[in-house]
């Protein structure tokens, strides 16, 4: 009997899991199922377009599908939404083991008062746009001249950096050509916690020093003196002391200021009010991008599934059902953390497979092929998209991504017709 394993979600955690499980269970049939026609999750659609070296982890994942016998079944959503191809129960009936590695893609709201105000955007939506995610095809935010970025993690710094860069600074990236935000003149990054508790990595700050023309300041109400040997604060102090000759944009950092509410004048956003210990700070702005974390999109009943306390620890929801990656652990942690965690979960799954009594053979991927046939995308479909995108790269870019679903599917269909 061959164990049939379906990993739902082709992001880093799903791919690392397939990699580790493939080594432990050489006989198992492993299929990675993905909602989008193309793989790699946030490695393709979240990691900043000017961090191609970090995105290059996808070369490692590519080997899974090219050489290591792992299957890819794209364009198949699992769950309860109307666009879903299969429910979780239906999928479980076809496979011995199902792993949910679908990430957390919904932007966390900065608070009720902020919801429904035009000009307030989430970093998930914005970074999807900058990474040409098909779900951002209709999204056209207006940032104006002054932007407030809420949050002090690495994603907030990504957002700040991409807003700050000029067209030339995007050389070698796959940021949409001509997409630099020249009209943005002033960016304020505001974290709710004090600077020494901010979550960004010091290299993220040091990288900002390479962008020409940025005047950097630390907000008046922000103290950087605590934690003398804190590398992040040192990086911030260094950044703020080096000033350019010709200033194109101003950026400033504020820490220890929880956002209280947006300010409006004549119905449009005019700023954000922050408050701490009865003290207030108002920052005028034309738009707000909140980068304060992510949550469940509700399509897999995550909270009900993960109710059992031990799931958070081991990843096992029930025999034959596991959670991995951000879906399991919450929206924290970098790519390497998913690797370590997925390796542990793979070991558990391998134990379960080894101990399973011989039973009826599950149909596995063959059933998906029978049921979905042509609408399913394969790994070679993705390789074609990859080639087309690289070949279309304009001057100064490494690729031109196809940014909407109909076009992506049409490119795939054209090649199939030609074969």
């Amino acid at each position: 009997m061959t164990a049939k394993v379906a990993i739902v979600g082709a992001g880093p955690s799903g791919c690392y899991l397939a990699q580790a499980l493939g080594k432990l269970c050489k006989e198992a049939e492993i299929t990675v199922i993905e909602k989008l026609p193309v793989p790699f999750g946030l490695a393709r659609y979240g990691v900043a377009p000017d961090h191609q070296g970090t995105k290059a982890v996808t070369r490692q994942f590519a080997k899974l599908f090219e050489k290591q016998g792992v299957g890819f079944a794209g364009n198949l959503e699992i769950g309860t939404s109307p666009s879903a191809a299969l429910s979780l129960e239906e999928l479980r009936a076809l496979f011995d083991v199902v792993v949910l590695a679908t990430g957390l893609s919904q932007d966390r709201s900065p608070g009720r008062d902020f919801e429904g105000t035009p000009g307030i955007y989430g970093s998930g939506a914005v970074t999807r746009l900058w990474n040409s995610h098909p779900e951002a095809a209709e999204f056209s935010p207006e940032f104006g001249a002054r932007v407030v970025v809420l949050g002090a993690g690495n994603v907030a710094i990504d957002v700040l950096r991409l807003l700050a860069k000029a067209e030339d600074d995007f050389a070698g990236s796959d940021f949409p050509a001509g997409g630099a935000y020249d009209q943005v003149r002033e960016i304020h990054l505001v974290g709710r916690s004090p600077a020494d508790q901010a979550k960004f990595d010091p290299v993220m700050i040091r990288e900002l020093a390479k962008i020409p023309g940025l005047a950097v300041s630390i907000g008046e109400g922000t103290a950087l003196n605590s934690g003398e040997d804190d590398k992040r604060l040192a990086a911030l102090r260094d950044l703020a002391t080096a000033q350019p000759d010709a200033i194109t944009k101003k950026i400033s950092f504020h820490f220890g200021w929880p956002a209280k509410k947006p300010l409006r004048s004549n119905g449009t956003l005019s700023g954000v009010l922050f408050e701490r210990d009865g003290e207030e700070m108002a920052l005028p702005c034309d738009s707000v991008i909140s980068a304060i974390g992510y949550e469940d999109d509700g399509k897999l009943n995550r909270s009900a599934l993960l109710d059992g306390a031990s799931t958070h620890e081991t990843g096992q929801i029930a025999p034959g059902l596991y959670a991995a990656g951000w879906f399991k652990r919450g929206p924290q942690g970098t790519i390497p953390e998913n690797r370590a965690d997925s390796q542990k979960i793979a070991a558990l799954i391998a134990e379960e497979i080894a101990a399973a009594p011989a039973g009826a053979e599950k149909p596995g991927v063959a059933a998906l092929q029978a049921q979905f046939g042509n609408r399913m995308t394969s790994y070679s479909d993705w390789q074609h998209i990859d080639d087309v995108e690289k070949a279309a790269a304009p001057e100064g870019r490494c690729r031109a991504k196809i940014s909407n679903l109909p076009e992506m599917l049409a490119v795939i269909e054209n090649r199939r017709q030609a074969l």
Partner: protein
Amino acid sequence: MKISLLYGTETGNAELLCEELQEALSDGHEVDVANLEDVSPDALSAEAFYVFVCSTYGEGELPSSAIDFFTALTEEKPDLSGIRFAVFGLGDTTYDETFNNGSTILADSLVAANAQQIGPRGVHDASGDEDAESIALPWLQERLAEAS
């Protein structure tokens, strides 16, 4: 000649590269692959030729799986006379000031422990166009020629 490929990694690129090199060399050589995490410096042997494949993380630091090995090397100060090795680094020119620091730190600490480095260090740039294997394999073949 027995070849031992040892990787220090954070996101797994170094591990995959070692597996690919192992496969490419397996015809003419006896090759094993191990994570540096599972290797102690005093277990190294003069019979084998060691190839360290190591990335860089943080602010030009060693990746997590190389840290215990490095600590043992610098704190326990084993004498590695007679041990021969080569180093290949994985890095990213986005981090220009600390490009491939990790592999330098590792090579320096091995040399300081009296091990003999064969040939120049090889390096890969994750932001470049080339696959790590297409750079590392010809580099490794040169090192093997020098070592035998």
